[in-house]
């Protein structure tokens, strides 16, 4: 300990200003940690040359294939103490709840084995313990593991999940996101720890259409809360809201903003909702939190295939199951089963390095549905096809299926 710090004139400029400075934190760590001294040196070097100096490699803990992001420095000759600077990804509890006690324990273990630098959190929701030597990785992980925490995902595997605060605090929450999150992640824990899938697979859970987890775009399987019956309206609270804000405000900010124009403000300052046309967008409920709430028959819409850029451009998830009830344990088991079927089908049919969304784009949603044994539904499309490039040999069979379903439904 006590290695002399490098000059960091560029990084030092990131210490001023009102926002908390990560550089100040790194420097504080460097006071007592030589690895951080050289890490700061390398980072300053990056800032000066505008280049990165880490390369990958291999590093792992016993029993697991993933969860560690190994980093070896390309400029270790200049900065030897941070020659190895691996990250351990640790899965937090759903919605990232902590006691101060558990956080302190994190700090203590990590101070012992690592750099002392923790990201709360990575974009996939992991606790990222950054800056570990190969040697310290195993004992460090062992202590976290004993504390009740497990390694997160990395590589071609199921990844760490994310869920919104949901039932814990949010009145909009239409299903138990924490429960779904934990049940599903832990059901596929083997696929998480032992990367053997075509590519990565992410779950995200949002309790309502506000999608605070960005699941539509950042997960292969997005579970987004919704309801099937009517919006709950407390007309007394509507009246109070109108009294407080004025009719014009309500018309301009609620009624006229409904995407399907299914609201109207009655003469008596109550609200009429054309529930058959409501698309569960959440807007009116967001504005009038006291007066409006999601209906009572709650569950989720399942979207599939969201991801970022590689290799065909960003994809938004698309509807796979318009509505799935999520109340009983059996409902949650059904969700898990669906996820399992999806992963199995994808594992069998995807090309190497092909995400779920890309595979669906390649094989067509129809084939994917068929593979999963799911029923086709107009809710899955923005609009039907605009081109005639389709084989219709099996038209009659498909019509028969639809008709049978309709008959069964009535």
């Amino acid at each position, binding site marked *: 300990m006590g290695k002399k710090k490098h000059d960091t004139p560029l990084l030092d400029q990131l210490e001023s200003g009102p926002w908390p400075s990560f550089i100040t934190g790194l420097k504080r760590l460097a006071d007592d940690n030589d690895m951080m001294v050289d890490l700061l040196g390398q980072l300053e070097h990056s800032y000066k040359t505008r280049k990165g100096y880490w390369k990958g490699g291999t590093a792992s803990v016993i029993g697991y294939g993933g969860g560690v992001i190994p980093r070896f420095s390309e400029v270790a000759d200049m900065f030897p103490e941070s020659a190895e600077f691996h990250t351990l990804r640790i899965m937090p509890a759903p919605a990232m709840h902590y006691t101060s006690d558990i956080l302190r324990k994190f700090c203590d273990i990590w101070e012992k084995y690592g750099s002392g630098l923790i990201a709360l959190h990575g974009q996939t929701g992991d606790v990222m313990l950054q800056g570990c030597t190969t040697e310290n990785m195993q004992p460090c992980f062992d202590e976290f593991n004993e504390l009740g925490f497990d390694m997160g995902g990395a590589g071609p595997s199921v990844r760490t999940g994310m869920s919104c605060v949901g039932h814990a605090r949010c009145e909009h929450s239409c299903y138990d996101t924490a429960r779904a999150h934990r049940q599903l992640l832990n059901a596929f824990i083997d696929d998480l720890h032992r990367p053997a899938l075509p590519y990565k697979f992410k779950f995200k859970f949002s309790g309502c259409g506000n999608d605070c987890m960005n699941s539509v775009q950042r997960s292969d399987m997005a579970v987004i809360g919704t309801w099937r019956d009517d919006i709950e309206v407390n007309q007394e609270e509507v009246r109070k809201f109108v009294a407080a804000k004025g009719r014009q405000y309500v018309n301009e900010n609620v009624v006229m903003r409904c*995407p399907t124009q299914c609201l109207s403000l009655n003469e008596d300052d109550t609200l009429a909702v054309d529930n058959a046309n409501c698309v569960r967008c959440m807007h009116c409920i967001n504005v009038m939190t006291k007066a409006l709430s999601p209906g009572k028959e709650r569950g989720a819409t399942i979207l599939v295939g969201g991801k970022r850029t590689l290799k065909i451009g960003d994809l938004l998830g698309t*509807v796979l199951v318009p509505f799935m009830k999520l109340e009983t344990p059996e409902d949650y088991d059904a969700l898990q089963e669906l996820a399992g079927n999806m992963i199995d089908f994808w594992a069998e049919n995807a090309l190497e390095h092909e995400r779920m969304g890309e595979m669906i784009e390649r094989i067509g949603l129809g084939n994917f549905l068929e593979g999963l044994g799911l029923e086709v539904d*107009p809710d899955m499309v923005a*609009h*039907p*096809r605009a081109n005639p*490039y389709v084989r219709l040999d099996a*038209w009659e069979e*498909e019509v028969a299926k639809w008709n049978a379903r309709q008959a069964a439904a009535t």
Partner: protein
Amino acid sequence: MAEQPRMPIESGTPDAFQYMHPLFQRNYGQWAWHERPRPGVLRHVAKSGDEVWTVRAGTQRQMDVYTIRKLCDIADEYAEGFVRFTIRSNIEFMVSAQDKVQPLIDKLLEEGFPIGGTGNSVSMISHTQGWLHCDIPGSDASGVVKSLMDELHAEFIREDMPNKVKISTSCCQINCGGQADIAINIQHTKPPKINHDLVSNLCERPSVVSRCPAAAIRPAMVNGSPSLEVDEKKCICCGACFPPCPPMQINDPEHSKLAIWVGGKNSNARSKPSLHKLVAAGIPNNPPRWPEAATIIKTIIKTYKEDAREWERMNEWVERIGWKNFFKKTGLPFTRFHIDDWGRTRHTLNTSTHIRF
């Protein structure tokens, strides 16, 4: 010395003024407003104060000279000798005074020409050649149109749809008929049957290969001669290979079906132009009256009429109520074939949780 052949006068598109009603000429570009005093009649008023009354009548498009002469007689006797045709093969007679309108209408009706097609009516169906003349048709557009217009006559002569209803038909998958509120098109359901004996004579083989949108055709030797081969797994039965290669017979009395498309719109009024979408397929190509297609089309029109708001074109109505409700209200089945899977189609899927329950 042999006579020199006559070379054409390349006069191109003729000047319209020589055939134009005098009031059109006088007020050219100077019209003020118009109204529709009754279905089939337009009253245009010019800034000068001049007025023209137009009476619109349906025709069969495919006309014999006797019918055309009959229309000319009417133009001379009941109108002022000038007519024009609309893009939908309706004929328009122009008169300069209101009192000429009713006698003209009476005469047209007497001669069997329906009056209408204006405003919020179902206008004449724009159509194509079919068995009457084309070399690649799967059906007969004129017959389909005659059959449908018989059924839709009542909506042609009235103006009580929510907005204009424009219909088109096409008699093969090349689709000379345009995008429309409702389009009735051929949809083949089996790959072409190749007559290999004729391929080497009748096909430009490389050009056929390159025209296939599915890259399903490859050159092949069959019975020792150069021919073509279709990968039937890849083929989407579009028939694009048939025109350049007639031995690749795509038409089939049973498997060439009709499909119905909804929501094409070319105008910019309110919403942007939009392409029509597949709603029904597998409809028998059933001459001479195509009753199965007619039933579906009447259902769609009836549902639209009852459910749409004033000024909503077909696609605007569907967008408002949602496609699910379109299928529900019309009773048409929704199948996996309605899902677009031709190339990068994610933008046609529902990338949201916006769902009606």
